[in-house]
């Protein structure tokens, strides 16, 4: 048991910090729902960050740490599936970016995805796309969303591979949610520290201090559960991490927007970039009800 990053993991995170620095500041003149950076994705690819889960000395925990860190950025990129799910697909290295489509709904990063995982009930399938198989859709979610053509050929994964992929989809969801939550909390802390009402900063009012502290404890729990699931590679731990992420996301998005007041309703404030990504994650993989069912099966055999 050791909760400190290994020297290799620490070095990786230092390198990642350098890479993300130009992308870290919220945009100053931004009025849209979605902020995506293909440049960030290119730089991650060039620096071989999408291979870290398979790199000796780094592994899935390092990948989960990287996913969490990158999710804290104001801009988004297709990172979590490439870093945490793609290494576990068999039959070679499938082309990235990846997307995950459920029940024919619009999905994140679909318009640029080259590999698509398709959920069909309990089963999972895979499809390979060329540009033109998916159409962009307007969405409140702060991810680029797209809809898949109905006639795309989907090849079913073997049940065993499907179960493994589902496990890593859950880890990826939890790791990304943990970063989104942290960034949203940081943004709320800044607002509560600066915004004054009744002659003092909002953050001095105990009602808000306690509420935000509880959010922070929940978010920290999501991070630890995600890292543990990545480290132990246990399906029950992964289901638990995704469940906790989706349950906590519901509370955090409401609470943090409440604390931001009208400022959080505007598109000029970046809070929605993280909270509306969290809302997108809330429904994935069947939502928290499906995760609870998986927890019931895997953790209470």
């Amino acid at each position, binding site marked *: 048991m*050791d909760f400190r990053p290994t020297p290799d993991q620490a070095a990786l995170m230092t390198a990642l910090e350098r890479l993300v620095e130009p992308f870290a500041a919220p945009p100053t003149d931004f009025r849209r729902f979605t902020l995506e950076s293909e440049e960030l994705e290119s730089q991650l690819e060039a620096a071989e960050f999408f291979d870290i889960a398979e790199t000796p000395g780094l592994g899935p925990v390092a990948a989960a740490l990287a996913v969490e860190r990158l999710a804290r950025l104001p801009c988004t990129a297709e990172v979590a599936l490439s870093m945490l799910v793609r290494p576990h697909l068999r039959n070679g290295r499938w082309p990235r970016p990846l997307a995950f489509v459920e029940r024919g709904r619009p999905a994140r990063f679909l318009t640029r995805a080259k590999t698509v995982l398709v959920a069909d009930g309990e089963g999972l399938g895979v499809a390979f796309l060329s540009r033109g198989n998916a159409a962009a859709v307007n969405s409140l979610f702060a991810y680029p969303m797209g809809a898949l053509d109905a006639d795309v050929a989907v090849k079913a994964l073997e049940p065993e591979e499907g179960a493994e992929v589902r496990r890593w989809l859950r880890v990826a969801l939890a790791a990304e949610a943990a970063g989104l939550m942290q960034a949203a909390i940081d943004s709320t802390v800044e607002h*509560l520290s600066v915004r004054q009402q009744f002659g003092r900063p909002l953050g*001095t009012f105990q009602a808000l201090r*306690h509420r935000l*502290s509880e959010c922070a404890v929940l978010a920290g*729990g999501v991070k630890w559960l995600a890292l543990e699931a990545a*480290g132990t590679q246990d399906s029950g731990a992964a289901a638990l991490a995704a469940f*906790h992420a989706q349950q906590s996301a519901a509370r955090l998005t409401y609470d943090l927007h409440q604390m931001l007041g009208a400022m959080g309703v505007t598109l000029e404030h970046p809070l929605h970039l993280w909270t509306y990504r969290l809302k997108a994650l809330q429904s994935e993989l069947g939502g928290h009800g499906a995760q609870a069912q998986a*927890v019931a099966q895997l953790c209470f055999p």
Partner: protein
Amino acid sequence: MDFAFDDAQATFRTTVRRFLADNLPGDWEQLAHGPGSASQTRFARDFCGKLARAGLLVPHWPARWGGRDADPWIAFILAEEMWGAGEPRGGQYMNVNWIGPTLMRFGTEAQQARYIPPMARGEALWCQGFSEPEAGSDLASLRTRADRHGDGYRIHGQKIWTSYAGAADACFLLARTSPGKNGISIFLVPMDTPGITVRDIPSLIGEGDIHEVFFDDVAVPESARLGGEGEAWNIVRTALSLERVGIPRFALAARMLERAVASLKRQDRFGPHAHIGAARARAACAAARLYSYRIVDQRRHGETPGAEASAARVATVMCEHQVADFVVEHCPEALSGGDALLLAHHQRAVVAGIASGAAEIQLNLVASQLLGLPREPR
């Protein structure tokens, strides 16, 4: 990062489990009800003696005091297994966790020689004289006085909600030696000192757990004072930081959740609605476990945990709450005589956010120290 225990840690856990299997009596689940009850107190004295003789009471203490300098993980695994089994050490867990270590750090040689060996042998029961009718979370406002009198002190005042006081041998007492926050001192007071009266307070926790303790002109020598006059705050802060992650409440909560789910499954009542409650409680237990492990890991690496310890406590309170709620909703019969251990857990969970300091104080610490929010005006 590594989320697995090493072989030595796993072996130690097995050793502790085997000891428990060999030494907990068949009616232990009935005994576990009422952590401060006379029957459990008697049992705990016997049990802690056996633990001590097996080298499992204070393995993390220095060799000089009967331990073997085991690292914080060993201490925590021991605590997990004990609390997870319903805490057969009774109130003696306090000695092991913080009273003993606090005396080692701040006590005089005479105090150490008098009080530590009985703790290491599993023969001593302590209570902590902190809360008062007018001083709970605002501990600094306590009124119990220790007035200089000749070579010693005379203590006047009242403590309340004091666990284990009815059977305790000694009290780790906070009393005021001068006005203000820096006027509080600590006294180590044998409970049979003339002038001390203990009255049981019937409570939700169970028989014999909390008490009022009255100090009526109680004479103690100067040598009963731990540390200098007015040093209580610093010493207590150290002691409470040990206490805060000292109780792995998540261990019993997680086991009680498994027990409740197993019961529901036997009755074919573990359906989709219960799945959500069980997952919520399980996630809360896992989060509390990981938060607590993080603190243990910091200690192991020689770091001093800061507000992370407060976050761990809040996470622990959340998990107790979730498991207790799950049992109330899905296994309500447990609270009506249907399951002694689920009942005992529920009674302990009631005070998870209250005992050893209100969780709201921890939320304030998280807000100021972890999040960096501006402090409240005073």
